[in-house]
């Protein structure tokens, strides 16, 4: 290539000091790397320079990891009850209390006493009793990723009699922190599956409309418009309401992904259609058609790669809608149902002001929803800039 030759000539110029030569050599290598980098590498480089998007990417990555390894990170199971700590406030590990400081973080234990009137066992925080936080503690036996059995959890308390509730417990004594982690997995995975389903549908529907054009396109456009015009959440609610009450958690889960995916395709299908329409008369497409390739192959092999990056951006941007829809549906009791845990299901407990007033920590999953949606949006914006081949960054 002419470019590399030019740069090579600079590197070989004799009148340079060794230092300059090394700098020139570095520059040459950098440019060589730049010009020989694949499209994806270039996108990644540009994306990396987008600081907000990188931060969002890391946060979302952490969230996904925490959800994926919820069995290990969460000290307790999603339905494990701690009858000694019902509706308990968050326990923040501390280093100091009125008895002095310690290098190991600890929380105050609770001792069970009898209520003087009703003689019922109640738990009373005991500021004299310290329970130390420990890492890699032994606890309930769980299967990580559903495959690897272990009793080790990331953290817990020294004393196995008491439990650590970082974010408090609900009225049944279930650990909010653990439940939030399990919910993260459910909510994010529903988003992923929903987006995948709508992606496949968008490819088929948008592909048909854009590739064939004409009458087919007209009919499909009309139908798409009908689906777009019905308000989404009421539509989802109607479909979700039809789920038989006796369905198991797993069935409801998959039905939800199908429902979300089934009507999430119009925006993406429009993108696919308009892109296909704009390139369907390009020489290479005509050549493929003349060579006798079938439509599916022409679309998949020849046309799609030219705008994959746009599709990925659109996919990332459609995540938040899936997550918000699922949360909203579960929140009103039309989506996932307990004992399943998702952000929406957890927030169902925090529906009235009275509850939020008494147990504000039940609202913590909402923070996760907001952070996840924000992260997806910021990443989408960053990706859009990065995927644009005409943007400046090198």
């Amino acid at each position: 290539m002419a470019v590399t030759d030019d740069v090579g000539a600079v590197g070989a110029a004799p009148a340079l000091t060794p230092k300059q030569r090394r700098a020139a050599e570095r520059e040459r290598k950098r440019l060589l790397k730049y010009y020989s980098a694949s499209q994806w590498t270039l996108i990644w480089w540009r994306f990396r320079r987008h600081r907000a998007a990188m931060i969002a990417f890391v946060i979302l990555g952490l969230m996904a990891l925490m959800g994926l390894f919820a069995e290990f990170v969460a000290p307790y199971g999603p339905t494990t009850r701690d009858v000694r700590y019902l509706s308990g406030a968050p326990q923040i590990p501390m280093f100091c209390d009125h008895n002095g400081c310690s290098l190991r973080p600890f929380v105050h234990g609770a001792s069970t006493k009898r209520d003087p009137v009703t003689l019922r066992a109640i738990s009373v925080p005991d500021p004299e009793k310290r329970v130390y936080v420990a890492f890699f503690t032994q606890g309930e036996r769980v299967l990580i990723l559903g495959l690897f059995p272990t009793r080790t959890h990331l953290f817990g308390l020294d004393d196995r009699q008491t439990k650590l509730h970082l974010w408090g417990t609900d009225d049944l004594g279930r650990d909010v922190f653990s439940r939030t982690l399990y919910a993260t997995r459910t909510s994010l995975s529903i988003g992923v599956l929903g987006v995948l389903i709508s992606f496949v549908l968008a490819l088929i529907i948008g592909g048909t409309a854009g590739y064939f054009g004409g009458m087919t396109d007209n009919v499909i456009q009309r139908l798409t418009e009908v689906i777009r015009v019905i308000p989404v959440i009421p539509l989802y609610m109607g479909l979700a309401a039809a789920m038989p009450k006796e369905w198991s958690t797993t069935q409801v889960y998959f039905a939800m992904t199908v429902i979300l995916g089934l009507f999430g395709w119009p925006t993406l299908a429009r993108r696919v259609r308009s892109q296909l329409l704009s390139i369907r008369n390009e020489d290479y497409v005509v050549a493929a058609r003349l060579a006798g390739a079938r439509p599916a192959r022409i679309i998949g092999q020849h046309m799609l790669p030219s705008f994959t990056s746009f599709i990925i951006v659109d996919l990332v941007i459609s995540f938040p809608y899936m997550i918000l829809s699922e949360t909203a549906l579960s929140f009103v009791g039309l989506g996932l149902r307990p004992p399943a845990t998702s952000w929406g299901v957890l927030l169902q407990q925090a529906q009235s002001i009275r509850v939020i007033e008494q147990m504000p920590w039940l609202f913590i999953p909402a923070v996760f929803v907001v952070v996840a949606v924000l992260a997806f949006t910021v990443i989408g914006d960053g990706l859009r800039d990065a995927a644009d081949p005409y943007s400046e960054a090198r």
Partner: protein
Amino acid sequence: MIRLVLDRFVGMVFTMALVSLLVFLIMELPPGDYADRYAFRKYSGTGVNVTEGDIQAIREDLGLDKPLVFRYVDWIGNIVLYGDFGQAFAFETPVTKVIGDKVWLTLGILFATLIVTYLISIPIGIFAAVNRGSSGDYLLTVFSYLGLALPNFLLALILLYFANRWFGADIGGLMSPAFERAPWSLAKLWDVIAHLWLPAFVLAWSAVAYQLQTVRATMSDELNKLSVTAARARGVPETKLLIKYPARLAINPVVSTIGFDVNRIFSELPIVAAVLGLTELGELLLRAYLDLDMYVAGAILLMLTFAIVFMNFVSDILLAWLDPRIKLGS
């Protein structure tokens, strides 16, 4: 212009026909049919032994044994010809009675929300575009992101919580309890209007975030146009110039997306209504779904969608009137 109106009108009717078919299919979706649920409601707990034959009788009585297509034609025919949306469960009353004056309350909420949305987003969007890169503009971007990320129903919960905490007041609901059963009067109307601002603000939350970005983007483009430069060269005062050239055009995309805003508002309405305790169509829709009261649900879904399609129609006409270029284009 008349051609355009007619054209859009035919399109509207066609879309509504397809929508009604889809809504009907959703109504048919839950397992079992109206006869099952009717029999269950009427006789459960009464000790009457209901046989399959009894249910079949109810079914034939209501014409539910006919094929799907006929039932659809019956349903939509009754709606179009007689305004009869079928039977609700509650006390065996017709759907229209259950819905009652809730249609007007819903429309009130809708228009209040639209007004709030545009009153906030248009001026502030223009301001942000004129002061691009300022700290105010930056703040607005952050706010827009939040508008997308914080779902309206969570915002409603947060507002309720703080109102309760700081003022000790319950700001939910659509009217004071005293007026709930009272007939409509001027005092009641005033009370409803006084209660409207909270749902309007909550529902406008994400719509504002979207429209702000739209107005800001169009306004930024328009500000770079030669017409602005020419006007400035002629010495037109800055405020007059802004209103006369770029702002006028920056409103177009807002007008053209009124339908989307209505869609977004109605989409969020049921859940926000449930949180805020608004007794209007959205909340009724949610309850109907939970009870599988499908005639009520279908009627409301149809009404909401019809409002959206109609607002699309209005926005098309409005746009053609505002921007003569569109009329020429069609």
